[in-house]
């Protein structure tokens, strides 16, 4: 859908004042829930997501078990009130697809071979949605997995790049997502740069794609640092509580 809105001006300034390579504001908090084995609350621009991890525990019903390794079941869910017009509760086709690609991405970094017949459940609740919820959800899931003590090869992290007004930029906001030219959300394992999730819609030349891809990877590394800070903060708090 095209629009008359100028999403980025000639000085490279975007609607919300960001430059082309700026991320929206991100806030991450680990260990926010009591019952869950691990949890994370994350704000990314106007997005608010809460993730709870349970497991590894026996996969039930039994026919879902894999005798050689754990299965990973991510469930991406949008709260009814997280969008402008109320969403009917329950999974729709979009959330089923996102749950699938996030499950597959997480499976690559979890040491699933250590837990045959088990399941790791990752519940991603979107409380406020404003463009980029799958990246926000996967990033929060990475932190919640660490908080749950699940053995990981690496902490997965996600970020999108895109194209607006013909220019490649990092981390599309709401208007940019609706009226932009292309969107490229990716998730990586930051230590190796392996791509765990990749989707793309819109229109990129080969060079634009490469530019956007590099930008998204850069974004991932920036967000990765924020993940680690959140985890350290959590452990420090726990350590202080123990000492008291």
């Amino acid at each position, binding site marked *: 859908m095209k629009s008359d809105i100028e999403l980025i001006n000639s000085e490279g300034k975007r609607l919300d004042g960001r430059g082309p390579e700026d991320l929206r504001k991100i806030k991450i908090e680990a260990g926010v*829930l*009591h*019952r*869950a084995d691990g949890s994370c609350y994350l704000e990314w621009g*106007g997005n*608010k997501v*809460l*993730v*709870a991890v*349970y497991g590894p*525990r026996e996969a039930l019903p039994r026919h879902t078990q894999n005798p050689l390794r754990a299965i990973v079941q991510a*469930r991406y*869910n949008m*709260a*009814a*009130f*997280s*969008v*402008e*017009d*109320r969403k009917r*509760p*329950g*999974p729709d086709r979009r959330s089923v697809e996102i749950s699938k690609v996030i499950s597959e991405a997480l499976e690559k970094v979890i040491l699933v071979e250590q837990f045959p017949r088990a399941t790791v*459940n990752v*519940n991603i*609740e979107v*409380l*406020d*949605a*404003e463009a980029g919820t799958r990246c926000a959800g996967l990033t929060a899931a990475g932190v919640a997995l660490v908080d749950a003590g699940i053995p990981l090869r690496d902490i997965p992290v996600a970020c999108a790049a895109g194209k607006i007004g013909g220019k490649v930029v990092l981390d599309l906001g709401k208007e940019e997502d609706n009226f932009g030219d292309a969107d490229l959300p990716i998730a990586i394992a930051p230590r190796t740069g392996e791509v765990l999730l990749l989707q793309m819609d819109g229109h990129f030349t080969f060079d634009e794609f490469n530019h956007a891809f590099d930008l998204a990877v850069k974004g991932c590394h920036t967000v990765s640092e924020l993940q680690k800070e959140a985890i350290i903060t959590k452990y420090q708090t726990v350590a202080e509580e123990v000492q008291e």
Partner: protein
Amino acid sequence: MTVVPSIKRDYITKLASEGKRIDGRSFNQYRPIEIKTKVVNKAEGSARVKIGKTQVLVGIKMSLGEPFADSPNMGVLSTAAELIPLASPDFEAGPPREDAIELARVVDRGVRESEVVDVEKLVITPGEKVWIVFIDIHILDYDGNLFDAASLGALAALSTTVVPAKRFEAELPEGYPKEDYPLPMAEPPISCTTVKINDYVLFDPCFDEEIIADARLTVATDNHGDIRAMQKGLSGSFTQEEIQKVIKGALDNGQEIRKQLNHSTGK
């Protein structure tokens, strides 16, 4: 499954026989309550309520629609609860089960029957167009007493709800206000829940108390000291004396909780 609860049960009833509870509270005492409103942006109103470690988020959305055929002069309230697997390893994804349905219906009746939302003021064109108020209850962390947490969350979220007249400007008739305005609310009744374990009646049960409870009783009371709703649950029974004791405890606790609710919603 059956051994652990049985050990817990012995321990909890032994404590109760000495007038104690596992977390040190008295029988009639609530855990600390925390109410925070306007916690999400897209909702017309929202609140996060913590009772001890139990945590509930309620969001309110409004839209325009038709009234029910048998009540053309009333807006519509619709309450849904999801026991999402986020909140407990025992909750499962899928359509709401009987526990979630009972929870939603009790909260719904608490709001509807107490007339805390003035549904007649939600009518735009009688019989044709009214405001629909969706109350969506998300359980985030489950450590017992969802009934009170969900009711309180619903009331706090409704109390801070702003009718989105501006967003629906194009669909509103001439003369109807086009600026957002607060949802018209009356003084809310407060819901207080107890469980009975052997012959002990405990207010605000935590998870460990709840899973071994014989019976449950919820009483909603208003600021005049009147009773506005009751719901008994589980397969145990109550005597008439116990019911009266629960009502009195609900009146006392209700006064305190009402103060906190009004404070947190700026009323």
